[in-house]
Every structure is written in C-alpha cells, then in structure tokens.
C-alpha cells in the first residue's frame, strides 16, 4: 500500500514518530497547523514505544507502565488530525526545508515552513573482538523483537555492557520467561565516585526507585558479574563463546547469543546532512546539535527534539517535542499559541524530566577500551575495516574521518557511518593527539538512506530539469 503525502506544502513536517515526534506532531496539529508526520517504522512509537499499537505482549506489567504511556501519546496524535505516514524513509532534507521521502518504492517531495527533526537515538557502537559474528546483537535489537513480536532469547544468553536499558531489557526478558545465563557489567568502578556529586538530583528523580527495583528483580534470578574490563566474542561463523576479564581474572563461557549495550547516542545523519552544526559532547561522548532553548538549530526553520537533541530519555523527549512544536506555532500562528501550555510551564517540565541525567551520564560513561578498539577488531562493519587499518592510514597521512574514506572506505557502506562514526573519530583523535572536536565527523550528504537509481530516475522532472543536463 502506497500512501503519498496529501499536499506538497505543510506548515510543519515532523520526522520520526517516537516520543518527541508524537508529541510535536500532536501539538502542532491541535493548534491548527497543517502537519505531516513521517516515520520509517511499521507503526508509531519509535524505539521506546515500539509496536505500541500492535504488540502481542498484552500482559501490561511485563513491558511496564512507562511503556504504555506511549498509547496515550498515539491517541493524542490520532485525535489531533495530523497526517501520519508510516514506512516513509526520509532521504533528503536541505536548508530550503525541501524534504524527499521514499514511500513504497516511490519518492515524493514536500516543503515545510518548519521542520521538527525527531530522529532519536541509536545504540553506541560496541566494537569488541567478534562483534560482527552472527549471534551478537544489541540489547536494543532484542528489545525490539520482544516488543514487536513477543520474541525472547531461549539459547545460552549473555548480556554485556551498562546503562538503564540493559537492566530494563533483562527484566522484560525474564518476565516473558526468556533465558539469561549471565550479565557482564562493564561500568567502570571509578565512575561511581565521579557520579557521587550528582547523586542528590538522581536520588530525588523517579529513575532512582524504578532503577533500583529493576536491578533487584534481575539480580535475584541471574548471575551478575561486575567490574568487567575486557570482553570478546568468538566462534567460527557463529557465536560460540564469550570471554571476559573481571577483577583481573579471565573467564570464557559458552554462548549462543550475546547482547551488547553501552548507552545511546543521537542519530545525527539527517540533521548533519541538512548542514546543522553539531559539537562534540565531552560528557555524553557523542555529537550533539547546537540548539537554542526551543530546540532551534543553526539552520533557520529546523528544530530538533528528543534524543537527537542530546540524550535525555523518553520523558524529556516528549517535553522537547512540545517545546519545539509550540515554538513553531508561535512563529506561524501566534494567536493559536495562547491555547497551548505556556513555554515557562514546558521548560519547568523539561527541567524535571532531565533531573538526574548528569548522574546517569557520569556513572554510565563507557570505558575507553570499549569505545576505542585496537588490532584486528572491526571498526567499520560495512567495509570490514579494522582498528589497525585505521591506525595504519593515520600513520601514512590520513588526518580525519573524511580523508580516511579515500584510504579505507570507512563510513561509505550502506550504514553511512552510523555504526563506525564515533569509533573512527575517537580512534583518530587518540592516534593524532587531538580532541574529537578537532578531528570532526564524516561529511554527510543526501541520500541519507540508500534508494535505487530507478527510484531517482522515476522522479517527475520539468523541461528545465532536463535542459539542465542534456547537451546538444
């Protein structure tokens, strides 16, 4: 089924139907602005509320109350009158706010007066030896399958890494009767001390009690090894074992499935390709867009809301979505803005939702050895480029990620750097004694998702378009 956008021009186009996008589109449409929400998944929800309208996991306590909040957001969206297109792959956004989107194998073009990017986050690369083996996946991947298809691990399963999502996933797998053999916690011991000064804000945030009870629930059923300082997956064409070092002692355990997670980072591809300025965030160890208090980026008319604006979690994402949408309403239909919650109220909601974040960021700051690999460990999964390959290229003159493309094709495969970009930046920065900000990132350009030449060729063209390229 192909559903093209109903119009060519919209007041507001929101990209991404996760917490921020759902809230932004509903707010904008409720205020009377013509609003289009484009999302690449089968249904709305993004990652946090994935499959919220279709999950086969009907026992509500298994996914938890925080998940079902998403159903209310979808209901508000439906009631708002916003136009929503699922399975819509946005492959271009430029400074003129022209958007190209692939729907059912055909491209459509729309123009917006304001764009709200809500493209969210992806899991930070976890480049350990063997991370490309079949049987090694991200924790988020397992959670996606659990929510959308009710699938749980049933072989020998190891979960490794750190951060809130890891414990939530473990609890959900256990509640659905899945199997977890061991959890390998890679949180650095020193982080506990570093995070201590920020503990008060966290202790008084809702995350504290929830997180603690979830960890208790999991630890009662699964062996948890903390202080893991080395991690490797091995097997011949398929994961067979996981080896790790904890407290100076190495251990190897047989495994069919290894789920990795060390936090999430903004998904920057579309924003960067639109020319939006990003800066290296030294605490979150990722690129974050430069935004004002309403989420407006360095490109006029484009705002960013949700985790794509810097990791803040689902509650913060919802509020950021409302703030960005309110700012759009203020600009395009000031009279309608009076009906929306006041900006001051929204900003205080945001401060509340972001409470405790610095503590989490500091505690779960991933260790250098899990971010910056060495030797034969693959950095770029698509082009199969190792850490040694990158360092060899630096030794003969590659200065940054964009030069490295010419040497090794890193970031030029289908994932367009999503799974190697941060690793390449940090690895090259370390090798060259520079900061990640100085080293920079891949120069991203449309199309940010692969589309076929046939689809491009089928795009409607004017006489002038043809004249511009035909000779004689």
């Amino acid at each position: 089924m192909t559903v093209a956008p109903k119009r060519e021009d919209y007041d507001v186009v929101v990209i991404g139907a996760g917490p921020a996008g759902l809230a932004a589109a509903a707010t904008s449409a409720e205020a009377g602005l013509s609003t289009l929400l484009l999302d690449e998944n089968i249904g709305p929800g993004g990652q946090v509320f994935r499959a919220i309208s279709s999950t086969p996991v009907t026992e509500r306590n298994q996914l938890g109350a925080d998940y079902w909040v998403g159903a209310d957001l979808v209901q508000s969206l439906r009631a708002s009158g916003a136009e929503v297109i699922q399975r819509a792959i946005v492959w271009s956004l430029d400074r003129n706010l022209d958007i190209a989107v692939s729907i059912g194998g055909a491209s459509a073009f729309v123009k917006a007066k304001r764009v709200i990017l809500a493209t969210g986050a992806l899991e930070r690369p976890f480049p350990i030896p063997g991370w490309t083996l079949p049987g090694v996946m991200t924790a988020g991947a397992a959670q996606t399958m659990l929510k959308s298809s009710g699938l749980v691990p049933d072989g020998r399963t190891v979960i490794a890494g750190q951060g809130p999502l890891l414990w939530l996933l473990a609890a959900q797998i256990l509640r659905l009767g899945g199997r977890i053999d061991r959890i390998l916690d890679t949180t650095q011991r020193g982080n506990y001390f570093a995070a201590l000064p920020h503990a008060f804000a966290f202790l008084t945030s809702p995350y504290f009690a929830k997180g603690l009870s979830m960890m208790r629930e999991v630890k009662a059923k699964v062996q948890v090894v903390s202080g893991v300082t080395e991690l490797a997956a091995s097997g011949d064409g398929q994961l067979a074992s996981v080896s790790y070092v904890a407290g100076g002692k190495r251990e190897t355990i047989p495994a069919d499935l290894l789920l990795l997670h060390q936090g999430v980072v903004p998904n920057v591809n579309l924003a960067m390709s639109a020319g939006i300025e990003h800066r290296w965030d030294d605490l979150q160890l990722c690129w974050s867009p430069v935004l004002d208090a309403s989420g407006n980026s360095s490109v006029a008319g484009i705002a960013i809301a949700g985790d794509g604006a810097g990791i803040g979690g689902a509650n913060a994402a919802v509020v950021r979505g409302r703030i960005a949408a309110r700012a759009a309403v203020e600009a395009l239909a000031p009279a309608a803005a009076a009906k929306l919650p006041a900006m001051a109220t929204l900003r205080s909601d945001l401060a509340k939702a972001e409470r405790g974040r610095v503590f989490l960021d500091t505690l779960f700051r991933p260790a250098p050895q899990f971010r910056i690999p060495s030797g034969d460990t693959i950095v770029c999964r698509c082009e199969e480029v190792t850490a040694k390959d990158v360092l060899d290229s630096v030794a003969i003159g590659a200065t940054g990620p964009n030069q490295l493309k010419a040497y090794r094709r890193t970031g030029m495969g289908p994932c367009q750097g999503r799974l190697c970009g941060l690793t390449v930046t940090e690895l090259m920065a370390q090798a060259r004694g520079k900061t990640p900000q100085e080293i920079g990132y891949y120069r991203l350009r449309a199309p940010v998702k692969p589309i076929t030449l046939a689809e491009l060729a089928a795009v409607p063209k004017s006489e002038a378009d043809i004249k511009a390229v035909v000779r004689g």
Partner: protein
Amino acid sequence: MFRRSEQDKRPEVQIFVDGVAVAARQGDTVSAALLASGVDARRSTAVSGAPRLPYCMMGVCFDCLVTIDGVGNRQGCLVPVAEGMRIEIQKGKREIGK
C-alpha cells in the same frame, strides 16, 4: 536463538525463505520472522563473504540486508511480512537486476 511468547495470538503468515515455506506471524518484520524461524538466515558480506545476521533491528546497521520479492538490499528489519512473500538470503553483493 529466540522463541515466541505463548501470549502471542497473532495470526500466522506463510512466507518462503529460499523456496522453503516458513511460518511467520502478522506484524513480524522479515528479520524477526527469520530469526524466530530457526532457519539459517546468515547472509554473507559483499567485502569478505563473512557471515552476518541482523545486529540492530532498528534500521541503522544494514546487516539485515535481504532480497525480498526479487528486490535486493532491502532492510529486512523495516519490512513487514506478507502472505506468500519470497525471501532470498543474500550472499555477497546485490546482484544486477535484483
């Protein structure tokens, strides 16, 4: 590697993986259906031929690339299954004409 929860009451959908009938469920993505089926769904990479399975399941890693109804290099994790859908496990590069 994975099994289905008993509370999953979604109707079955039949797909074909390299010509063999496989039972999926309505609402599964192609990648989820392959991982749940127990069939060897490992593709091989275009560069070295190394075996791979889906890694992220959310559209960013492209390790789920698969041929669906004759079209190569589709992201299996973003495409829902449909009755009679024909899946081919992609070995190496996408073929010209697919």
